[in-house]
């Protein structure tokens, strides 16, 4: 994707480093990045919502996905980039563990884990972006909603796919069953990320991956970074499984509201199909994710039980925070984006 713009000293130092050759790294740039990262981590009031740190992490992580335009792919595994990720990941994970409301753990079993996950996700009573979309959102707010979602949805399913080779037995089979459906059963035009791109184009937005990355707040980047962190660390395979379960379990009903919102605003099936598809798809996925993925994983590897619920609760926490910020901005009559100048339909 296009390189995200810097949002502070750490992300700007990273961009300077990535502009050089990974085989001939200028030591002063690397040292600057390390020093600024340490200083930023020492001084930040909240790593989860720190624009500079989350942008740096997001930029480094993008090397693991579609790459960065004009940046050598060898940076993905370069020790300086890995060190930057590790430095931010540790306090990021710690903050999530402190704040995620992990419920009392059930006994490790398929039924008990699924029931506890349904209880956890059903108790989620945060402000509802989907209800706001259905009933109140203006056309511009609906467009902002798509811009915010585009950071993840244009690579929908990819962060959880990292977990496939890290799982075994029933949990692996369940994840493959879900992910195959996410990728349209192997049909490009039915891949969920592609359906989302169609929705974006249908309202006149640019569906290029990363086009709007500079406009989204830190919490939106944190939501994506959390998934990548869970997905790319084998140690956190319980968390990525729990995250997917919670994500799927809080998706069917909201997607019906989203679809209704865009219909209310006058959009046709070209725009609403993505949401309508998710009502049906995620009603299937949530069952498989809760029982066959998360339940089986916790049964096979009981030491992962706590992380299954940590991943689920962390997802609810971060996405709840992001949703609350959107609704607060909209009800105050302001934009939920960092910058609002490119929200209008491109000429």
């Amino acid at each position: 994707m296009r390189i995200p713009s810097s949002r502070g000293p750490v992300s700007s130092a990273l961009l300077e480093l990535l502009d050089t050759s990974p085989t001939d790294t200028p030591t002063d740039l690397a040292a600057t990045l390390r020093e600024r990262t340490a200083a930023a981590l020492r001084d930040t009031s909240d790593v989860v919502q720190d624009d500079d740190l989350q942008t740096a992490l997001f930029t480094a992580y993008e090397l693991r996905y579609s790459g960065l335009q004009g940046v050598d792919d060898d940076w993905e595994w370069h020790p300086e980039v890995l060190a930057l990720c590790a430095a931010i990941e540790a306090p990021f994970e710690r903050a999530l563990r402190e704040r995620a409301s992990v419920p009392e753990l059930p006994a490790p079993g398929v039924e008990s884990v699924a029931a506890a996950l349904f209880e956890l996700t059903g108790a989620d009573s945060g402000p509802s972006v989907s209800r706001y979309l259905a009933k109140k959102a203006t056309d511009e707010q609906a467009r902002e909603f798509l811009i915010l979602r585009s950071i993840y949805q244009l690579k929908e399913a990819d962060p959880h796919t990292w977990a496939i080779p890290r799982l075994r037995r029933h949990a692996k089979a369940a994840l493959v069953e879900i992910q195959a459906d996410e990728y349209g059963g192997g049909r490009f035009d039915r891949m969920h990320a592609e359906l989302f791109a169609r929705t974006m184009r249908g309202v006149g937005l640019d569906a290029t991956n990363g086009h709007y990355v500079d406009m989204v707040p830190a919490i939106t980047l944190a939501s994506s970074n959390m998934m990548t962190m869970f997905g790319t660390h084998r140690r956190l395979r319980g968390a990525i499984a729990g995250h997917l379960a919670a994500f799927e379990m809080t998706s069917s009903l909201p997607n019906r509201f989203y679809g209704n919102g865009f219909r209310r605003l006058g959009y046709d099936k070209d725009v609403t199909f993505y949401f309508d598809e998710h009502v049906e798809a995620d009603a299937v996925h949530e069952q498989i994710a809760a029982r066959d993925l998360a339940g089986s994983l916790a049964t096979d590897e009981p030491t992962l039980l706590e992380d299954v619920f940590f991943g689920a609760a962390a997802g609810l926490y971060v996405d709840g925070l992001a949703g609350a910020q959107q609704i607060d901005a909209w009800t105050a009559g302001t934009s939920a984006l960092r910058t609002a100048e490119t929200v209008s339909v491109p000429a």
Partner: protein
Amino acid sequence: MTGPDQPATRWDDQWEDQPAGTADEPVSITAYPNGPLLVRGPFEILTPTGEVIPPRRRTVALCRCGVSTLKPFCDGSHKAIGFTTEQEPPEPQPPLGS
């Protein structure tokens, strides 16, 4: 994977020229507690007049609570109405007497 103790079934005996999901496998229907029926395999869903409802995915969830807006498919509504499929299993009871 075949090993010395397994029959030497060639994978293409089973899969060649068979589109995914139409191999010689039975349809399975799994009743998920407090939720829908998940159907996998080479199934066909028909309208009352016999027309095929095009399946949009390999595994579908059929509504069991009756309030889905997408019937015959599940839309997750069973959670909103607190649908349950069975009684809570009874707690193990201590023997009577003594």
